[in-house]
């Protein structure tokens, strides 16, 4: 897979309506105001977690990376390199960046994932669960073969449940471009799944 080069500046910074005073919130972050930090965390953690989980399929890693994204936000704001307007877009872009770093590292240091247990012929429910996991693993493998933009569009649309417009805003693309990207991503995913299953 190509290394993902998404950086916050590539993402949408425009008209993503937040419904709250983002500037004062950013000022609060700069001052390390605990209440503001807590409020920002509460508002966006789920979105970031769902995005990262969708990209990587691992709860623990999703948790670690998600909280790391907020730590990076604090560090960036302190160094005057934080978001200027679109906090959500910045957080998701940073999450994308950290996910890409994680994937690069995991490619360099592949680890063997051990099975939780051995299949038991007398436990059909367990076998069903193993089948389900196998299918999800196949989809995950196929998904990771998509381009970064294709992965992002699927993660935002189906991981976070964003609309076309929201996805376009976060990815700083036009809605029509997202429609086409989504179509190509799903088509590629279907092809990749076929290849993974046949291997």
């Amino acid at each position, binding site marked *: 897979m190509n290394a993902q080069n998404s950086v916050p500046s590539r993402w949408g910074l425009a008209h993503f309506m937040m419904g709250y005073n983002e500037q004062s919130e950013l000022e609060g972050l700069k001052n390390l105001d*605990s209440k503001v930090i*807590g409020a920002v*965390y*509460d508002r966006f953690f789920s979105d970031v977690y769902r995005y990262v989980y969708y990209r990587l399929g691992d*709860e623990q890693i999703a*948790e670690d990376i*998600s909280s790391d994204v907020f730590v990076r936000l604090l560090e960036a704001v302190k160094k005057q390199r934080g978001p200027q307007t679109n906090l959500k877009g910045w957080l998701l872009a940073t999450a994308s960046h950290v996910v890409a770093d994680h994937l690069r590292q995991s490619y360099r240091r592949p680890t063997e994932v051990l099975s939780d247990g051995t299949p038991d012929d007398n436990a059909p429910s367990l076998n069903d669960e193993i089948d389900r996991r196998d299918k999800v693993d196949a989809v995950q493998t196929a998904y990771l073969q998509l381009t970064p933009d294709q992965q992002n569009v699927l993660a935002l649309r189906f991981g976070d449940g964003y609309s076309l417009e929201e996805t376009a805003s976060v990815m700083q693309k036009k809605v029509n471009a997202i429609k086409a990207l989504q*179509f190509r991503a799903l088509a590629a995913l279907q092809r990749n799944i076929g290849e993974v299953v046949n291997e």
Partner: protein
Amino acid sequence: MNEKLYDALEVCIKALETGAEIEAVLKLYPQMADELRPILEAMIQAQSLSATSVPEDAIRRGRAHVLGHAAEMRESSRRPRGGVGFVFRRLATSLALSFVLLLSVTGIVNASSGSLPGDNLYPIKRTWEDVRLWFTFSPEGREELESEYEQERLDEIDELLVDGREETIAFYGIITAQDGDYWLVSGVPVQITAGTQLPAKPVAIGAPVTVVGSTNAQGFIEAQMVGALDPGVSLPPLEPSELEAGDKESNEQGEQLELPQSEADDDNEQEKLPSTFEFRGVVSSQKNGDWVINGQQVDVSQADIIGTITVGAFVRLEGYYAPDGKFMVTKIELRRSNSSDSSSSDSSNNDSKDNNDDHDKKDD
């Protein structure tokens, strides 16, 4: 054509998200059905990768991590920056320590480490302590050393009392019990006599004091002077206040209970209400309402507990000393969890207070 296909896909996706079946949806676009079917099947597969829910534990742990990091950032921004002077100081430290090593003074210092007041090597032990303090530049390091040395003073007194020796001593501590002229100061029995010089204002249980006196063969200290201390001085960990609780449990986790902070200044109020104190420390045991924090048993049965506090957590607590010497906690909040436990949203909100603590600490 493609745009129509993309629009049709979007309509189909929305329909599928409401629970419709693929074949039923495809009837909306029979002319595109063959193209859309594999795409919609892929969309169903793509949905299987999404998280069913966001674990509550993950939210809490992440929150604690982020707020903890913010607190560290606040602390670090308060510390003075090192700069060139810092480098020179460290260089001077290294050279000085090397010089000390070359002169093989360490042997003497080591030999003095077990000495007691009145021993020939005791002045060397105290001088070495001063040297170590002098070369400790960080406020946290100094505070830790000061507290360690105050604990050493208490240990020395214990040894003197056990040996029945009569030596002049001085130490800091907190009054944990008062029975007439018989006091316990950080677990050390102190006899107040007619000749004892006491503070102008009466000192009550929980007050930090300095005691100057002499050990005697009867196993207590005859106080020559008891002085009230200002809030902020580093003190040794509190000892169990009950006389029978002689098995001092040292806390290995390095966090020291700190000085009572918010002592009521109003004398009239002090008569009516018990003075409240504020500490920080590490929870080492939790049994129903009785917890042990840095070796001190405290009662949390009436406390307002903020955050999920487990053994090993670093906490801030407020409360007062009951007449029996037990510390009754009125409020306890998680400052830093032991591992992956969570914190409440307010866990970092008292940093301005922390700052005051830092300013209050003895820091020559």
